[in-house]
Structure formats: structure tokens, C-alpha cells
């Protein structure tokens, strides 16, 4: 089959689907959807359709981004716009099958948004929602819209046309096209992709490798997983284009074994592409041959580093090695090798499909195109987002993310995974691009973005991230292995109230040495959370050290709970529930916490009826309380809603 035949068949299949009389139901069953209960919803939908003998097409699709709204179900009736329903439960699913499919009531009250030219009264347009409106969708262009297990869906939406275009060009011209697009490595370092390809292309040797780095190791990051689960062919197409441009004949996709669904879909995609002659010998009748294998990684963070990744593919311990030689000169098994991140490959297919000029229209000078982030933490709209590079941080937090949970105060955003830095509120205007982030002491990284509110202790967060990088250090470099350990010990001290003032200087000095003296990106960036929190939140460190006070009331060792004698009603709730039996008192006696027994679990604060509000959580200060239980003198507040015993 020629590609034209393949393409026209695919388009025919897609159009038949679009214009089908049968209603279609799309359900997001990527890992994020599944975690939110999508499979139970799917089961209910199938059961209800069967029970009611409704003929409908149910398609499992990938994630379109708004994780906070998962599970997401999209119902398309012939000639109507798509209607998205959010946070769907099995009960709700049954409900709108009844209401919309049977009774034709689209239930605007349950709907999140519509997609399509026409609208539905009472339902906003999905892409007008604040979360989605400032997101150009290049990498995620198909996610959530197509069946990732059907190659025809991808092809019908311009899929593999980029490869066809590339095969019609000289390899050098393909590299030139990528150069013109301004694409930089989306793994985090931002090295120009075309330069990397060029180096590898020029490297002598007949056997060359390309590798897709899908070893997404940052805690809380899921960009690559979502892309591979939602649109695996876009990545494969990118790899094929890159391999052609570089002159590589073998490829690997290095992916975490913890991503079983992504692996399954990739394997299927590989089979389908091979059947269509898009992978294998003489691709689409050209002289270009390319084979690709999937290698599952065992979940070591450092294996995201390219030399460690290659060592892992070779069956050795994943440990970085010094460069030179660069992978482009001597990489996998000593052969010239080009490694790009999953997202970079996803961009490549789009660039070749739509052209470099189109792509360069997104982003800012020197930072062209878009970047996906997994927006998580104390933010209202968590999810997978794609934004043009150079977008102000503010816009991501307050428009796309719709601000901080419970409308608390924004304290910091951490970009770049565990070795990124924490950016304070004063930097909310910072454009999110490679250079600005580096200048601010952070990194772009592969796209983790963790938002923190006023309740987050910045010393503790630095300690947390450092404990991650320390545990994931491969152990090779003395400074990374032992330096981060010493830093971690100091941070433990500070969060436990044992810190000394000189510790801050020592952390800074040691952090700089670890950065300067480590071989790979892990060690060179591991101190970033510590250094940036000292830079932007030094007052919190000083409060921990000088006043033994945790301003965010987070560090267990530095907080105390007191029962306020003027508010306690002597209701026994906290006393009965204290796991440490640290509370003494009796009915209508003011309860007293024995501070030596208290384990700071906060149960008393959680359980004390809000109308009493008798438990105080403080840090660095003492509250005057009686040493022994005394009779309650406080006036009893109005017990409007419930009796205290119902709280138990």
C-alpha cells in the first residue's frame, strides 16, 4: 500500500465515525483517568448501553489534561457538539445516558464544556475555559481526541504526513527544518535539537542509534506518560523523522516499567506502524530502514541521564559517565547515538507535519514552541498543560490553574522536578523559558511544576526534595553521594530545631561545591531546592534556627498543640481520641496536653468541634495553660448544628 492509500482509508474511517448516526462516547482511560475511577464508569456505560439496547461507539481515549476533572466522559451525538462531563461517577454515567442519549437532555448542570462549532445552551465551550484557553495544543494535539490504539485515527489527523514529507527531503534539509523551528530539548537542558542531530549525523560510522527517553522520573510528573498513553504514534513518527535525518537504523524507547499502559500502547503502535510499512526495512518504499525496540527501565531516577540510560540499555548499572566522548560520538555500544526526550519527539512530528514557520510562531525569541507541564500541588486545577514558552508564571498559576486551593496565599512554584528550584511570589512575572528559569536558580527540567501555598514549610520542602535526590544519587561522585548526605543531615537538624546559624552558610557553600564537583545533571542540580529556598526564603531558615519556629507550622518537632482554657468545653473528644494518651481532663474539665507525651499528630486539632476552636497549633511560642485540668469556665457556644458527640 502506498501512503496515499493508507491515508485515504484512514480518513474514510475517521469521517465515517464523525458522521455516524450512532452516538459516540469517549472516555479518558489513561492512567490518570483510571486512578480517578474511569474503568468503573466505562463498565457502567457499557452495561447501560447494553441494557437499554442503545447502539453507540465507546472509545477509550487518552488524557486531555484537566486531571482535577477526571474521569472525563465526552458524548457526541450526530450533528451535535461534543459534550464533556467532568468527575463522572458510575451513577452519573448511568444518569446522563438516560438523560442525554435517551431523553435528549444534555444536562448542562453536569457538563464541563463543549467542543465544536455549535454550542449548547448553558454549557461553556471547553476550550474557552480558563484552564484550556491559553493552551495551544501541539504535542497534545490528539490526546483525548483519538483512539490511541487505532493508527488510522492518528493518520486521519495528519499523522505520518511529517514522515512522508521528511522522506521526500534530504536528511540535511530535515535538520535545517528543525533548526528553523527553534526546537530545543524538552528533557530539560534545552540544547538545540537540530545541533544535536547534526553532530550525530556527522559522526563517522554506519550503525547509529536514536533513543527516546521516556524514563520520566520526577515525582509528580506525568507528561511523557500521558503523551504515550494518549498519542503514541506522534512520538514514533518523531523518532522516525529524527532517525532519517541522523542516518540511524536502530532505535530504543527507554521507558519506566511502572508505565504498563504506555508500554502496552507503544507496543501496539509499533506493531501497527510496522504492518503499514512505516517501521522496518525500506520504509514506504524508500531506502530508509529503521527498527525500534522498547527497553523497560527499573525506575532509577538517574537513568534519565543519557549516559546512565545507555548503560542501562547495555545491561549495566545505570551510572553516568564523563563526556567526552559525547553520545553523538560514542554512545550506545560505542556507536554514535542521539537521545531526545519523549516530548521532543512529539514536537518533531508536529514540526514536519505543519512546518517550521508555523511552529516558530509559538513561544518567544530563542524559546520557540510549547512546553508541557504537570501542574500539581496546592492548585485548584491540577492537570497536564501545554503552554507557549515564555508565558509568565502568573498565568499558569492563576489562569490555567485558577489559583491556589482554598484561596490561600501562593508561596512558591517548584519547576524542574526534585532538583529544580523554588520560585517565590516575587517572581510570578517570570517568563517560563529556559534562560529565565536558570537565572532564577531553577531549571526547566522535563516539566514538573509543583505549587505550594502558605502552609508549606520551605525548609521542609528543601529537605524533602534533597532526600529524594540523595536517595537517587548513583553513588559515583563523592560530592553528590556524601555532600548531599551532609546537606540532608543539616536540614534534618534545622527542621528538628537543632540548627545553628552557621548551618545556612555551610549549606550554601556545600551546595555550591556539590554543583561544581559533580559529574552529571543529578549532582549538578540536586542542591537547587536548598539554594533557592535559602535565596528566597532565608527568613524561614532563620526562624527555624533562631526562634525554633516553623512559620508554616509544618515541622513536627517545632510545633506544639495547646488546649485553650478559655475555649475548652471539657467534651472529652480530643482526650478519647489522642493516640498517645497525652491529654488529661474530665467531663467539663479543661483538658491539658502533656507536652512530653504529645506526638504532634494533630488529631486533637482536627477533632475539636470548630465552634469550640479550643485547640491551638503554635510554633516558637508558648500558650499559657493550666498545668492540671481545672473546671470549665468558658461560656458554651451555641450548639446549632450538632451535638459534640456526633463528631466522634
Amino acid at each position, binding site marked *: 500500500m502506498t501512503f496515499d492509500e493508507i491515508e485515504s482509508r484512514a480518513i474514510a474511517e475517521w469521517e465515517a465515525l464523525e458522521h455516524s448516526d450512532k452516538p459516540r462516547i469517549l472516555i479518558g482511560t489513561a492512567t490518570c483517568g483510571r486512578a480517578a475511577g474511569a474503568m468503573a464508569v466505562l463498565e457502567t456505560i457499557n452495561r447501560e448501553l447494553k441494557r437499554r439496547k442503545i447502539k453507540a461507539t465507546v472509545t477509550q481515549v487518552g488524557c486531555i489534561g484537566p486531571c482535577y476533572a477526571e474521569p472525563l466522559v465526552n458524548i457526541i451525538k450526530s450533528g451535535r457538539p461534543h459534550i464533556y462531563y467532568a468527575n463522572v461517577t458510575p451513577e452519573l454515567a448511568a444518569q446522563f445516558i438516560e438523560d442525554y442519549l435517551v431523553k435528549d437532555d444534555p444536562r448542562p448542570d453536569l457538563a464541563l464544556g463543549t467542543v465544536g462549532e455549535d454550542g449548547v445552551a448553558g454549557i461553556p465551550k471547553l476550550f474557552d475555559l480558563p484552564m484550556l484557553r491559553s493552551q495551544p495544543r501541539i504535542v497534545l494535539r490528539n490526546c483525548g481526541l483519538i483512539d490511541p490504539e487505532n493508527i488510522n485515527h492518528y493518520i486521519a489527523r495528519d499523522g505520518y504526513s511529517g514522515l512522508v514529507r521528511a522522506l521526500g527531503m534530504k536528511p540535511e534539509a530535515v535538520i535545517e527544518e528543525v533548526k528553523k523551528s527553534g526546537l530545543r530539548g524538552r528533557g530539560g537542558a534545552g540544547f538545540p535539537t537540530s545541533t544535536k542531530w547534526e553532530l550525530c549525523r556527522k559522526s563517522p560510522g554506519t550503525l547509529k542509534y536514536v533513543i527516546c527517553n521516556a524514563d520520566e522520573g520526577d515525582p509528580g510528573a506525568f507528561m511523557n506518560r500521558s503523551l504515550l498513553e494518549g498519542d503514541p504514534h506522534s512520538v514514533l513518527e518523531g523518532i522516525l523523522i529524527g532517525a532519517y535525518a541522523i542516518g540511524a537504523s536502530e532505535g530504543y524507547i527507554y521507558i519506566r516499567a511502572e508505565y504498563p499502559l504506555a508500554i502496552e500502547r507503544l507496543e501496539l503502535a509499533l506493531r501497527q506502524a510496522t504492518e503499514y510499512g512505516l517501521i522496518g526495512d525500506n520504509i514506504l518504499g524508500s531506502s530508509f530502514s529503521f527498527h525500534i525496540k522498547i527497553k523497560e527501565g527499573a525506575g*532509577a531516577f538517574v537513568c534519565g541521564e543519557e549516559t546512565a540510560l545507555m548503560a542501562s540499555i547495555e545491561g549495566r548499572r545505570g551510572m553516568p*559517565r*564523563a563526556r567526552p566522548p559525547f553520545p553523538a560520538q560514542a554512545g550506545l555500544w560505542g556507536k554514535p547515538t542521539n537521545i531526545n526526550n519523549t516530548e521532543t519527539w512529539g514536537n518533531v512530528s508536529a514540526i514536519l507535519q505543519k512546518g517550521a514557520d508555523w511552529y516558530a510562531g509559538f513561544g518567544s525569541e530563542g524559546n520557540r514552541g510549547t512546553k508541557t507541564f504537570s501542574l500539581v500541588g496546592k492548585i485548584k486545577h491540577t492537570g497536564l498543560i501545554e503552554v507557549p514558552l515564555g508565558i509568565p508564571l502568573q498565568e499558569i498559576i492563576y489562569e490555567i490553574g485558577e489559583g491556589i486551593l482554598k484561596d490561600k496565599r501562593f508561596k512558591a512554584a517548584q519547576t524542574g522536578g526534585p532538583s529544580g528550584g523554588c520560585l517565590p511570589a516575587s517572581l510570578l512575572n517570570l517568563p517560563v523559558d529556559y534562560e529565565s528559569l536558570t537565572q532564577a536558580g531553577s531549571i526547566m527540567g522535563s516539566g514538573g511544576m509543583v505549587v505550594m501555598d502558605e502552609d508549606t514549610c520551605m525548609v521542609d520542602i528543601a529537605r524533602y526534595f534533597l532526600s529524594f535526590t540523595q536517595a537517587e*544519587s548513583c*553513588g559515583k561522585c563523592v560530592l553528590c553521594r*556524601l555532600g*548531599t548526605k551532609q546537606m540532608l543531615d543539616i536540614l534534618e537538624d534545622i527542621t528538628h530545631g537543632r540548627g545553628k546559624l552557621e548551618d545556612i552558610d*555551610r549549606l550554601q557553600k556545600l551546595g555550591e561545591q556539590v554543583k561544581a*564537583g559533580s559529574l552529571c545533571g543529578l549532582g549538578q542540580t540536586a542542591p537547587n531546592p536548598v539554594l533557592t529556598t535559602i535565596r528566597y526564603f532565608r527568613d524561614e531558615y532563620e526562624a527555624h534556627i533562631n526562634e525554633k519556629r516553623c512559620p508554616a507550622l509544618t515541622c513536627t518537632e517545632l510545633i506544639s498543640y495547646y488546649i485553650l482554657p478559655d475555649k475548652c468545653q471539657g467534651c472529652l473528644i480530643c482526650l478519647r481520641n489522642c493516640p498517645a494518651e497525652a491529654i488529661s481532663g474530665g467531663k467539663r474539665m479543661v483538658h491539658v496536653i502533656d507536652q512530653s507525651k504529645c506526638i504532634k499528630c494533630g488529631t486533637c486539632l482536627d477533632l475539636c468541634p470548630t465552634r469550640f476552636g479550643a485547640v491551638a497549633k503554635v510554633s516558637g511560642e508558648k500558650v499559657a495553660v493550666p498545668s492540671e485540668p481545672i473546671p470549665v469556665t468558658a461560656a458554651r457556644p451555641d450548639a446549632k448544628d450538632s451535638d459534640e458527640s456526633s463528631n466522634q
Partner: protein
Amino acid sequence: MEKINLTIDGQEVEAREGMMVLEAAQAAGVYIPTLCADPDLKPYGGCRLCVVEIEKMRGLPTACTTPVTNGMVVHTNTPAVNDVRRTAVELLLADHPSECLVCDRKERCQPFDICLRNVAVTERCVTCPRNEHCELQQIVDYLGIKELPFRRTTRSVSIDSSNPFFDRDLNKCILCAKCVRVCDEILGVGAVDLIYRGYASKVATFGDKPIIDSNCVSCGECVVHCPVAALMPRKAELPTEEVATTCPYCGVGCQIYLGTRNGQVVGVRGRREGTVNNGFLCVKGRYGLEFINHQDRLKAPLIRKEGNFVAASWDEALELVASKLAKYSKDEVAVLSSAKCTNEENYIAQKFARSVLGTNNIDHCARLCHAPSVAGLAQSFGSGAMTNSISELGDARCILAIGTNTTEAHPIIGLEVKKAVGKGAKLIVANPREIDLVRFSHIWLKHKPGSDVALLMGMAKVIVDEGLIDLEFIEQRCEDFSTFLSSLKGFSLEFAEEATGVEKDKIAEAARIYATNKPSSILYAMGITQHSHGTDNVIATANLAMLTGNIGKPSSGVNPLRGQNNVQGACDMGALPNVYTGYQAVSDPDIRKKFESAWGCSLPAEPGLTVTEIFDASYQGQIKALYIIGENPLLSEPDIAHAREALEKLEFLVVQDIFLSETAQLADVVLPGASFAEKDGVFTNTERRVQRVRKAIEPIGDSKPDWWITDELGKRMGGKGFEFSHPSAIMEEISRLTPSYGGISYGRLDNGGLQWPCPTKDHPGTPILHREVFTRGKGKFIPLEYKPSKELPDEEYPLVLTTGRSLYHYHTGTMTRRVKGLNVLRREGEVEINPGDASSLGIIDGEKVKVISRRGEVVARAKVTEVSPVGVVFMTFHFAESPANMLTNPAVDPVAKIPEYKVCAVRVEKI
């Protein structure tokens, strides 16, 4: 190689392309501290001490991993560099028992001094076994670190003392990974690796078990390379003097320094420069020399009186031997010389036999190992020794290792094979057993024991049929090709598959690999020679090499690996019944005349009896007196029961040895020899390299060097030309009478020895034989036919027994059985048996079983292992408690007279 110019600390430095900045700096005399760089190992860049600043490069690259480039400007001593360096060492010290390194009293603190002010500090100073030899300590001194800014972290890992030769104290480990790297990169063993991550990272064996339970081969290279005291030899007594000499174990001829203290050997160190071993040693060479000082050493001559040995003076013993031996005619006496003794001693032994006893009945154990090599290669090439050198192996593009368990029997040559594989060479292993080299092979031909001719001729036929021969070489350099061609007709792939049990595709593939990846080198050992058709096997390898032109060129050739330290030298010296030194035939009248005039006596013209024939003749009463020097036939002869009877029938038996061996116990007179450490001389290693043996200590007790003893006997029996006062004088006589040794003298051997032929004083020696012409003129193709082994399995004896060596023991164990640690690592003989055979016999791993052949039976522990193929059991011959040679077949090769040690029929029974 291109020259590169760079600047290091303002100094113009010239370096070679491919050098790292660290090497260039060291060559220019610029010191850069490092703990993980090692000239033997690939660049690592872990300790971060060698960071430097390089203009136009980002950050602080490590000098050990950064290749030099033209115009590079390096600064090794800047504030940024020093900060990182100091911090790295301070961090290491915080994680290392380091009091000894920063104590302000350390200069004054000597071992056994008690520091009253700070006991703990002093205690650490004197108890760290590396004190004053610790690389970390040296760097702390260099950086002038006096205090520890970081808090101490302690690991409290218990010390692994499971290996008998060294301790692993991971509390002191600095994770430079040199042990991991040396075990992987040099040894290819991989007994240890890094496990866990972050601060928990550590060096561990598989499953983090004690090292004894790992696949560690106890070579101790990791111990040598450890910069701190994490790996320490158990016996760490430091020598006061060191003497350069040659290892007395296998034929590789590793160069060592024997460390002595108070007249005792206390340590061994590999010699690096210009040596076959490049400083590396195996477990026996490094840790196996404590037999020198063993209490069992014979310290005085012993004379049997009324059945018991009685110590005697040298005068009494020598007079007795001289007077007894004088009674027998030349047909009634024989001498067994020794492949463990020096060339000078073998020379004296054969001179004594020929000129004093008047007999050519002199032979030695080469008969039992490489007689077919001498016989076969002499027919094909004209010279029966390794055609090429050990150091060339690393550059071979293909190695065919057939009938050699190289990593066990010749461990240092094993390293060269692994090096070649590491550089991309193809390795073909032909062996019935799944030996360690199989792990490194591209193709493993698991042929049936004894089917080598079928295998090699099958390969030859493929090479001919597929046009892969080197016709030009054959036409110009060889003869009798057409007769050989016609003999190939019988070796179709189908026949080869049938005879060898190897799939024909594999045979064809191996042939193609061998023929097309030049230079190809053939290695073989006893698996080829110890057969009733051993000479044919050898000829088959020679045919294959000539067919492809793989001879007379670097990294090619046919390379028999000699088993004992000086088996090559003993042959060279004419301790053989048919030749004088340098393979000069006794039957050649001119040569005989030369020796008669040199020695001032008349010499017998008829070749004498071989070892195997001597035993038969003794058994039949024809030989009545036997003088055995340094051999233990009661374990090494096939069919030991027969050998014992033969010895018992002798009227007079003299045994000269360093221990009271099984054979010595039957002697009438025992003469105590001195060990290699106690005398001067030369050994000739397997690659024909003549190397010095130097006296390090005085002979133990009243023992004497073997040359002195035989020399005394010669004098006392009226021999002429036995007035030697030192081995160097014997060497002068050897070079006078031996063309191939003509240019060899002690003075020329100091820098790495000389490979014979070395005919003149200015000849540089010959690393590669047959370069322009073969020794015999033209290489001779010899047609062969396949002959099965003499004793094949049948219903009564359904299994094949094959024998060999263990890495941990040597020959009949006289030396290695007296090294305690080696007996911890391998304490007894085992019968290796395939799980399939074991289960059908109901045998479980580790139980004692009886192995029975037509000649006898032995009891040994069963080791159930896939290493042994179905239908084949394997035993080593080192253990007197389970002597495999009770079972072996004395059937011999008709030409070389070597017994068929490698194949006999046995059955195994549960006890």
C-alpha cells in the same frame, strides 16, 4: 600517533593523541591528586579529586576523563579546583575511620606507642593496616587537612573475613570502585558490583553475600588496587627486601617480586614493566607460595633403614646413591627429570644420565602433557612450541580455544583472551565442558571428548569448500596440500556432526569465523594432547592454521599452552630420551660427537625409554634403579595402581624433592631439594621466553639446590665436567652447546627475558616463529583420519571420565595442598556430573560417590553441575584422597607415548 601540544599550569606539554589530561600532567611532572584513576583501568571520574579548570570548557572537568586536545590550556591549582578537591576529601574523611589521618600528633606516633592523651586516636593510628601506605592519607597530607568540618557518619558494616587471603572492611571503603572495575574490566569475573543508591551505595557481591560465596577467583587484584584499607591481605607483613623472580606455578611465567623479611618469604607482588603478566597474578601466584616455608619441607637427606627413613648427612646419602647407581648397567637405570626445576638443573640431570649413567633413559612429565605438541608440530612446522607470544593474543581478531580451560589452568593468558574479546575479537571455544571462557565466546562447540580431529577436519573442509583458504600462503610456504585435500573427503559436515555431536551449522559458522577474522590464533592445551590420538589432534590444528595462512604473523599461530613452569625448558634442555639440548637428536652422529667431545665421554646412540615405557620396563623388571627428580608419578601416572607396583618392583629408588611426596615415600633414599625461592637459574615459559629465577632466601634446613645434588652425584660417580660452582656457569655451557640458546646469558635476561631461538649474543630473540620460512623449511600438510578414543563407554561403564585442573591447585598438589587458604577455597576433589546423569543415578549435589573404571575406583564428592555435559564426568588429579588417575587409561599415543588422560569409561555409584 599524533602529537598534541597543550599548556598545563603555564608549562608547555607534549602529549599523545588519546591521552587524558591526567596522564599528560603526570608525564610532565605535574601532580594531580586522585583516588579512582588507575593506569590499568578505564577512566572513571568518581572521586572528583582530579578536577581541573580548562579554558573554554564549562565547569570543572576531571583530568582523568578529559582527553587532551591541541592548544588546551589547563589549570590544576585554582581556588575553584582546590575548593572542590578539599571538600571532596573532607567529605570522604567524614565517612571514613579517619582519626589517624588528621591527628596533630601523627608524625610522632609510631606503632606500639601509647598516646596517653587520646587513646582512641593512637589506637586507630597503629591499627589501620594501611597506615603510611594509604593513598587517602597521602592526599590528606598533600592538601594539609587538619580538621574535619563535617559531621562523622558511620556505617558499622561487619568485616567480611570469609576469603582466606584477604579481608573486606567496607567501613573504610571510599567507593572508588577500583575493585569493581578491575574485577570487571581486567578479570571479566564481576564478582563485585555497586549496589543500592545514594549514601547507601556500596560494593557488594551478588546478593550481598560474603565474598567466599560469590564467583570471586581470589586473584587479589582488587586488593592490590584498593587505595585504602577496605581490602587488605590477611598476611600484611611488609617485606624488608624484594627479589625479582619467576612464579613457580603454570607455564605462563609471571614475573614477581618475592618479598622477604628475616630470611622468610612474606609476600608476593606482580612485576609490571616488560613482563608477560603486566603485574597481574592469579590466586596461586599471589597467595600460593607459603609452601616455601612449610613445616613439611624436607630438611635433611633420608635413608631407608629397616623400612624406616633415617636422617643422614649429605656425604652418607650421596655416597650411598652413587655406589648403588654405579652397580646397574645402562639399560637398567633411568632418570626422571623435572619440569619444576630450572633449565640448569635439567641440563645437569640429562648430562648425568647420559655421560655418567651412560643411558638415554631420561624423560620427564612433558611426556604426560605436551609430547604430542613436540611430536606433532615438529612434523608440521619443524618446531614444537608456541609459535607466537602471549602479549600478541590481545590483538588477535579471532581466537580458537580448543581443549584449554584457560582461565583455570593459565589464568593470566585467560586475561589476554578476555582482553582480545573486549577489543572485539571473536572467540571460538571448543570444549565438551561449559568452561568459564564460554561466557565470553561467540560460538561454543560442545564436542564429544576425543572428537577433536573430526571437528577440526570438518572445519577445514568448510574452509576449503567455501574458498576461504589462503592459497598464496599454501602455495609458497607449504607442501603436500593435495594429499591433505584428498584426506578431507571423509570429513563431510554430516560426518563431523555425527562424530562430534555439534550441529553442522555451528561447525561451519566456526570455520568461517576462524578463516575470515584474521589474524586468528589457536590456543590449546591438554584437551588436545592427552589422547591416544593426541599427535593427530595437534596436527589437525597445524593444518587449520596453514590452510588460512594464520602462521608466522603477529597474533596468529598455533599455541600450545604448557602446563608447568618449566616444562618448555626441561624439553629444551634435553630431558627427553631422544634429544640433547635444543632438540638435537641423539641419533645424529655429528651431534653426538659434539656432545662427546664437550663432555669428554662416549654417549649412547639409541634413544632411551619414555616415562610410560620406563614404568612398563620397571614393572617387567628390566629397569632396576630409578632416579626421580621433583616428580610425583604416584598421582600423575595413569592407572596409578600399575605405577605403584612398578615402583615397588625397583631394586633402588632415589627421589629428590622438596616434600616427602607419595612417590618419595616409596624411595630408598630421599634427597631434599631447594625450592625455586632458594636458588638461581632460569625457567623457559610457554612462549619460549627464558626468564631468570633468583635466590631470595637460603635453602630451608639442609636442603640443597637440585643442580648441586645431581652435580655432586656426577662428581662422586667419576663424571667429567661437573665442576660447577654456580648455575650461571651451567648456563654458559648450555649456550655453547645449544644453537637456539646460543645468545642467552644471565646478563641479557634482566629486562624481560629472551625468547628462543636466540642464536647469537646480539640476537634479540624470536617472538614469532616461522615468519619467513618454517623451521623445517616448508609447512607440511599431513592427512588425518578420525580415530575414536581407545576406551568408549559401554553398558558396564556408561560414562566418560575426563580430567583436568582446578584454578586453586597445581599438578599433584605437593605445593598447593600445603597452602592453607587454597585448601579452604578447594578442599577436596570433586566429581562433576550433569544434573541429568545425577538424577538418574539418584545422586544429589555434595554427596560422596564412588567412581569406578576397569583399573580401579575412587571416592569423591559429587558436584552436580551443568558445566559437565550429559554422559561425561570430570575430576581433577590434584588430590591424593581421590586420585583420578586410579581410573585413567594408560593407552598411549603411538607417536608421542602420551596416555589417554582425557577419555576413559567409568561408572558412578552411590555409596
